Each structure stands twice: as structure tokens, then as C-alpha cells.
């Protein structure tokens, strides 16, 4: 009995860790899409941030500086997406694909340039767990929720914070309005352009935290393609969660849970490739079940043109 409870506890802890970058990126995606800009470049944003974070941590020896570098990388790349989509009215999906490719090519390029060779970067000092006194002693859920790294705690805080910002502040009201009916927002004297830039920039910052998790927490180095589709799964979580912070977080947690469970339980029985397929299959099933884009912000995906 103890073994089973222990197993549940450790799977839960594992699930939360898997889910962390997904939740962060999904929340980022939420800000972008709520403002009306599709952002399938979350994957690329996470990748480039993972890289710049390692660069920052390596050369400064300080992991917090690394996070700042990660945020900067995510912000710059997301602004590229914003400029292309909002100001130059490029197709938002194509721009997102381009951001992903830019991150792939860019990280490959910079790896050679900065560290001399491709593959994996040199190690850095990453984050380690910070147990919260007393709370981390609670059986089963203690270690899972209260003995995690700072980025995980940050993820927990960002969920209610995002909810508050989106539904309880004027900024959030304007953001949601921009994604539903930009013409209405325009005539109310609020700048659609500015709201969309904010939305996309926030997606860059949040996705950056997700990327930082990969290279500074899960692993303490950067490996090419290390995000392995997390950005897309996060997008699927956002869609399954109906563009709602709580929904998206729950969906991301479910995906994380699925990943944790399959790896824990089936590791020897099933070939690696099939295990790796599982999260993606689950995502497709979730999209088929919940996916109708009928509930997306009404104006998402289209450039706004004043006539």
C-alpha cells in the first residue's frame, strides 16, 4: 500500500514537472490569441529562449541572469512575430512556422558560433528544488506541490495571476475585446495595434520561462531541438482549455500526467518510439474531442485593417 501511494506521489511530482513548460507556454499563447494573433511559434520561442538562457547562465555563471537572457530571447523573437503579423500583416500561421524554423536554424547557427560545435552545449548550473518548509512534508502531495524548483512555483503563481489580469483588469478587458471585435475597440479609441503587440510580447515572455525550464531545470544544458514539440502541445492545451487560463492549465496538467504515467509504468514494456508518440496521440484525441475552433476569439487569425 505504501508503495502504491509512494508511486502516486512520485508520478504526480513528475507530472507537474512535465506540465510546467506546457502551462507556461499555454498561458503565453493565451495572451497572444486573446488579442487576436495566432501564435504557433510557441515552440520556436521556447527553443530560442532555452538557448539564450544557457548562453546567459554560462557566461555569467548566474542562473538568474540566464533567466533574464531567456526572457530577452523570447521577447525579441516574439516581437519579430508581432511586427510581421500586426504591422506587416503577414499570414499569422506562416509567420509562426517561420519563427519555429528561425529558432531551429538560429540555435544551430549560434551553437557553432558561440560554443564551437553543434549538439549539446556545455553544462551550466541550473535550478534545483527548493522545498517549502512544513508543506513539503505532507504525504503524497507534499513533494509534488511543495518540493519543486522555483520555475514550477512561478508557474503555480502565474495561473491565478493570468486569470486576474485577463478577467479583472481594464487591460484584460481591452485584450479580450481586441480578439473578439477589433473594429469595436478601434472606435472606442483603444489601439488595436498596441494591444496585439502586448499580447504577443507577453506570449514571448511566458514561453521564454517555459523554454528556460528545459535548459536550466530539466537539463542543465542546451541540446538542439530539446523542446520536442512542447510548444505545440501547449497550443493544443490552450485550445482544449477553451482559451481560458484555468482550462489551459488543467489540460496541460493532463498532458503532463499522461507523459509521466506512460514513462513510469510502461518504460520497459513498450519501445521508446511508441512511448514518445503517446503525448502527440493524446493531443490529437483531445483536439478531436474539444477542438472545434468555434469558441476561439472571434477575430483571431486575421490582420486588422482600418478601411
Amino acid at each position, binding site marked *: 500500500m505504501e508503495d502504491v501511494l509512494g508511486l502516486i506521489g512520485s508520478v504526480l511530482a513528475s507530472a507537474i514537472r512535465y506540465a510546467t513548460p506546457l502551462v507556461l507556454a499555454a498561458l503565453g499563447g493565451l495572451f497572444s490569441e486573446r488579442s487576436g494573433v495566432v501564435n504557433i511559434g510557441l515552440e520556436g520561442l521556447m527553443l530560442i529562449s532555452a538557448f539564450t538562457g544557457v548562453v546567459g547562465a554560462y557566461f555569467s555563471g548566474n542562473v538568474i541572469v540566464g533567466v533574464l537572457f531567456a526572457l530577452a530571447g523570447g521577447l525579441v523573437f516574439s516581437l519579430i512575430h508581432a511586427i510581421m503579423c500586426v504591422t506587416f500583416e503577414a499570414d499569422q*500561421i506562416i509567420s509562426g512556422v517561420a519563427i519555429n*524554423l528561425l529558432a531551429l536554424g538560429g540555435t544551430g547557427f549560434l551553437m557553432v558560433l558561440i560554443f564551437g560545435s553543434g549538439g549539446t552545449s556545455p553544462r551550466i548550473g541550473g535550478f534545483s528544488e527548493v522545498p517549502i518548509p512544513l508543506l513539503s512534508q505532507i504525504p503524497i502531495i507534499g513533494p509534488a506541490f511543495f518540493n519543486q524548483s522555483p520555475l514550477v512555483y512561478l508557474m503555480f503563481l502565474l495561473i491565478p495571476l493570468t486569470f486576474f489580469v485577463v478577467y479583472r483588469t481594464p487591460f484584460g478587458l481591452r485584450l479580450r475585446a481586441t480578439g473578439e471585435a477589433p473594429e469595436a475597440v478601434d472606435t472606442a479609441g483603444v489601439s488595436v495595434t498596441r494591444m496585439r503587440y502586448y499580447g504577443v510580447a507577453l506570449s514571448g515572455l511566458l514561453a521564454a520561462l517555459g523554454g528556460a525550464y528545459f535548459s536550466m531545470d530539466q537539463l542543465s544544458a542546451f541540446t538542439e531541438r530539446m523542446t520536442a514539440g512542447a510548444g505545440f502541445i501547449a497550443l493544443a492545451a490552450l485550445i482544449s482549455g477553451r482559451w481560458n487560463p484555468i482550462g489551459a492549465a488543467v489540460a496541460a496538467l493532463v498532458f503532463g500526467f499522461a507523459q509521466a504515467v506512460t514513462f513510469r509504468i510502461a518504460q520497459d514494456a513498450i519501445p521508446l518510439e511508441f512511448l514518445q508518440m503517446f503525448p502527440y496521440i493524446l493531443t490529437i484525441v483531445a483536439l478531436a474531442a474539444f*477542438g472545434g475552433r468555434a469558441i476561439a476569439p472571434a477575430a483571431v487569425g486575421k490582420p486588422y485593417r482600418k478601411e
Partner: protein
Amino acid sequence: MDGGRRGKPVGGVLRRLLNQIGGALVFPLLAIGISFLIGAVIIIATGNNPVAAYVALITGAFGSPSAIGRTLVNATPLVFTGLGVAVAFRAGLFNIGGEGQVFIGAITAAGLGVALGPLGLLATLVCLLGCILTGFLWGAIPGFLKAFFGAHEVVTTIMLNFIAINLATYLALNTLRGEGLVPGTDTVAAAVRLPLIGLGLGRANYGILLGILAAVVAYVLLWRTGRGFQIRAVGLSPGAANYAGMGIKANTVLALAIGGAFCALGGFVQVIGVEGKMSIPFVANLGFNGIGVALLGRTHPVGVVFGALLFGGLQAGAQQMQFATDVPLSLSDVLLAVILLFVTATKIVEFVVGKRARTLAAGTRLDEGLGR
């Protein structure tokens, strides 16, 4: 009462064609130009001379028969993935699943090719048809999910990429594993392989002719058949297509399935044409670069062929560039990404040339944003 035009059929067709091509070239050329400009800045930042670098790039792409050969080798699978993306775009759908569809085609070709070795060219034909079939079915999955469940094809095709890559990798390393130092399938018999062109073009094979044939098929499909008419109508105006009695669901599934079939053929030429086997790791980014090729070519089969040649050349030239200067190879990936970034940003033309140029160059629905 302008009836004069009808009296000059040849002149009319030619003028129409030139008008269309001229207008269509503005955006791709602009995107390429901007990309090279940004590339030059990056090259300078690495402490190299951009002129030398670009000269090396171009020489490495088109400067000698062996360079042209390399370009053709790179370009051939891109023609197929470009067509696979372009046909789906014409239906208003994003086929981001090229990566996975290529892998599906590759493993099908490797499997059938090895198994049917003794049949020679007949085996080649069976491989070809087999890839078309498996690609068609794999592409139909996201089509079906979109048509009947409303699941947006962007995310589903991307998820299927990962699934296909894992599946194909597993098969190549386990069920169909071959002997040899390089991990992957067995090598397909020479009799099954696509013949080399020779003429000093290195590994360039007749796959490129197959690619051009595929482009012709795509053109005929889209502009000379009733099905193509439907696909284009659905892509440009689903409301009008529905009003006209065209089935949106059927066309959604078909367009993505056909796209899958074309992309799978990209895997076919890579295995049966270039490599002779499916090795792991397999060629990457064919599907994503297919998107760039399709858009650069304004989703028109002719444009796709030229776009593929450009992309193929860039990749071939990048090796020479790394050799001559020491700009990292990945710059070509960065350049290709920048091209993709700018090729739909039609508003830039306004900044550069003015609003009229933009309306003149309007043609496909791309200018209005493809998001659906």
C-alpha cells in the same frame, strides 16, 4: 462594348500570363531580397565578408556541373513537398504535416523496395504507387479530423509529424532494420533505384523529371478538372462553394489527402532516388521547407518548381560557403526561415513601392491572410 479582345486569342493568353507572372513575382523577389540583406548583416557580424560568402554560395549552387547536381538532389524532394503544401493551400488548408508524410513515404518506399527487389523497374512503380497510397491515407487523417470534428489542421498535422517520425524510425531501426554501419533499412537493389542523369551532375537522378511531371499533374488537377475547380472554390470562398453545392467536408479531406500523397513522394525520391535506403537520422526539414517553397512559388506548380530549385541551391551553396569562409552551415536554414517570414508580408510592398503595386500583385487569397 469591348469585343476586340476576343479576336486575338494568342495575344490575349500571353498577355494574361505575363500580367499574372509579373504581378506574382513581386512578393517572392522582395522576400528573397530582404532575406539576403539580413543574411549579409549576419555574415558581417560573424566577421566575414558577405560578398565572398555569397559568391561562394552561388558558386556552390550553380557554379559547376557538380554544384548543379547537388542543387538538383536537394531540390527534387522539395518539389514534391512544395506541391503537397501548395495543393492543400489552394483549398484554404495548412499542410504542416509534410515532415511526417515524407517519413511515411520513405519507409513505405524502403520497405517495398527491399521486399520487391527482384522485380526491378516494376518494383519502382509499385513503390511509387505504394507511397502515393500511404501518403494519401496519412494526409486524409487530419482532413477527416478537420472536416468531421473541427480539429484545426495546423496542430493535428504537426502532431502527426511526431507520430510519423517516431513510427518510421521504429520500423527502420527494428522491423525493417538492415545490416550495415549506418543505422536504417536495408539498401534497395540498384535495379529498383532511379537512374542517375550523369553528365557530371553527380548524384542527380531522374527524380527531378518525376518532380516536373508531378507539377504538371498538380496544374492539370487544379485548373483542368472539376475536382480542382471545387478545391479552389472551397479555398477562396467556402460560403460560395457551399452555395454552389460543393461539399466542403469531402474537399477538405481530399485536399489534405492529395497533399499527403505529394509529400510522401518526396520521401520516395529521397529513398529510391538519392540514398537507396532510409537511414536514421533521415533528412530533416523537407516538410517545413516545402512550406517555404510553396509560398515562394505563390502556391502555383510552376512557382513551386522554381522555388524548390532556389531552396535546393541555397542548401547546396551553404556547404561551399562554410568551406570558403567559415560561416556556419545553418545560415541557409536561417535564410530560408527569413524568406518564409517575409513572403506573406504583403504590406511591406506598400512601404517600398506604394499601394497600387500591392493591388496589382494581388491574385491568390494569400494576400488576405489564409487563417480560417
